[in-house]
């Protein structure tokens, strides 16, 4: 079983991101579970959402505390200890940031990568400058970064789930896939 946790702020599309990711994994024949952690529901408040997948039905129903992957939708959350808390040793962290991972002050033993999803989203007209909607614009990069789901499955899931501005969301997914810089930083040791 693989566990993925997405951190964002209300309005950035974290919940939709989990649905698209889960749908993509489902289309590849996986058993999936996608669920939000509903806090106080307001725009701008930090939110978390979760995806689990496995080869067989998933019984576990609690939140995700030791994720294999963490995706951070909001650059301002990148330095937050809560965001990478419990990230498994050898796991992966993908951040929406214009900075390289070395400049984010990360501590832990995991692979890290950045993609400027806000910029990609704005270029394709997704959301506003104050509040870009980056959920699709980060999932293309996640497909490449994690290698657990194919770009085509993400695109199929976007086509199936996102009724408005479908084509530009797909373009954002493609651009995000292409713009992820490889190879990524590996093993940023904790500096305690």
């Amino acid at each position, binding site marked *: 079983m693989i566990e993925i946790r997405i951190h964002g702020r209300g309005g950035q599309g974290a919940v939709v991101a*989990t*649905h698209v990711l*889960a*749908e993509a994994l*489902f289309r590849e024949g996986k*058993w*999936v*579970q*996608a*669920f*939000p952690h*509903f806090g106080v529901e307001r725009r701008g408040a930090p939110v978390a959402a979760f995806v689990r997948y496995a080869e067989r*039905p*998933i*019984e*576990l*129903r*609690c*939140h995700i*505390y030791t994720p294999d992957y963490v995706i951070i939708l909001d650059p301002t959350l990148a330095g937050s200890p809560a965001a990478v808390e419990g990230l498994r040793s050898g796991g992966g962290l993908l951040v929406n940031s214009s900075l390289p991972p070395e400049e984010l002050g990360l501590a832990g033993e995991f692979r890290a990568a950045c993609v400027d999803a806000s910029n990609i989203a704005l270029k394709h007209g997704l959301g506003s400058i104050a509040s870009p909607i980056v959920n699709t614009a980060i999932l293309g990069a996640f497909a490449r970064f994690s290698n657990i789901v194919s770009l085509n499955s993400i695109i199929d899931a976007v086509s199936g789930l996102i009724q408005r501005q479908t084509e530009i969301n797909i373009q954002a997914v493609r651009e995000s896939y292409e713009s992820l810089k490889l190879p990524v930083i590996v093993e940023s040791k904790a500096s305690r």
Partner: protein
Amino acid sequence: MKALITGNEAVSTAVKLARVEVIAAYPITPQTSIAEKLSQYCSSGELDADFIKVESEHSALATVMGASSAGVRTFTATSSQGLALMHELLHWSSGARLPVVMANVNRALGAPWNIWCDHSDSLSQRDTGWLQFYCESCQEVLDTVLIAFRLAESVFTPVMVMLDGYILSHTAEPVEIPEPEQVDRFLPKYQPLAAIDPKDPHTYHAVTSPEYFMEFKQRQFEAARQAEAVAREVSADFAKQFGRHYALTESFMCEDAETIIVAAGTSAGTGRYVVRRLREQGRRVGLLRVRMFRPFPFEEIRTLLGGAARVAVLDQAISPGSEGVLFQEVRSALYQAGGSGPEIYDFVTGLGGRDILPSYIEEMVEKVENGGKAGLARVNWLGLKS
């Protein structure tokens, strides 16, 4: 067709497949998306039903009771305070023998205000005469709504289908969606015994004197008890049609277990996850999930738990001044007149959305196996902040 849908979408899909004719519901978190989706189905014509807008949950139930009295299949859905507001009419609808089906998305009752899951809303309605099911997956939610209509209309008793707030209501997972023709075969059109007809007026449920009232109540009681056997038949027929079988209780590795955990709803899934891990260590642990809570399957539970040395009940609802609600029922099943049985302990957790961790369930097993009677209180709280 298999699709990725949430628990709330599973409810509205089942209601559509059941060809319900009248729906009334008042929005309340986390039930709201059920009412929204059903209202969309009605306005788009995907479901040929009247969606009647109302000003409260009390009115929602009153409305579907009226429609049910006129002989049509009806549905409503609510949560928490909304269910509490229906309380008076919950008694009335079961006494009037109206086969209304309701989905209740489990949510804590205030104060303090809380929108997250526990079972206090529906378990505090246990004496209203409604039959109750607690589901563990989105698939089970869809299937149980279909089973609920067949059962309700067979024993003329309303049925409440429970799904854990957020943990099922807002969780997307793969669900097999049956074909409409398949559902039509399993669930034919509702045949009422009596229906209000303006051309042939009658009075129903008028004042009933002490000479007759008890007989009405005794028949209602018998119907609710009889619902246990009928639920088994309906489940068997459901399995024949759809290939998925639902027992009234679901036992997992109980046969040779020394310690059995009892749970209802999604916590049972996390419980089974823990049981598998403990079994790998050679521990003789099992889990019993109570799926049908009303009628309470006393004999089945006594048989399944009777051989264990210890039983630990996970309660997500507590009766202040008494004990956990599920615990009371399970103990009552185990200790009938003159009987002896396993030691039984009560654990309360998961109130108001407190996440139920595998470690809590491991702690239950550790405590009952090592602590025994001496180390445990009448009610034991898990996961409290110190």
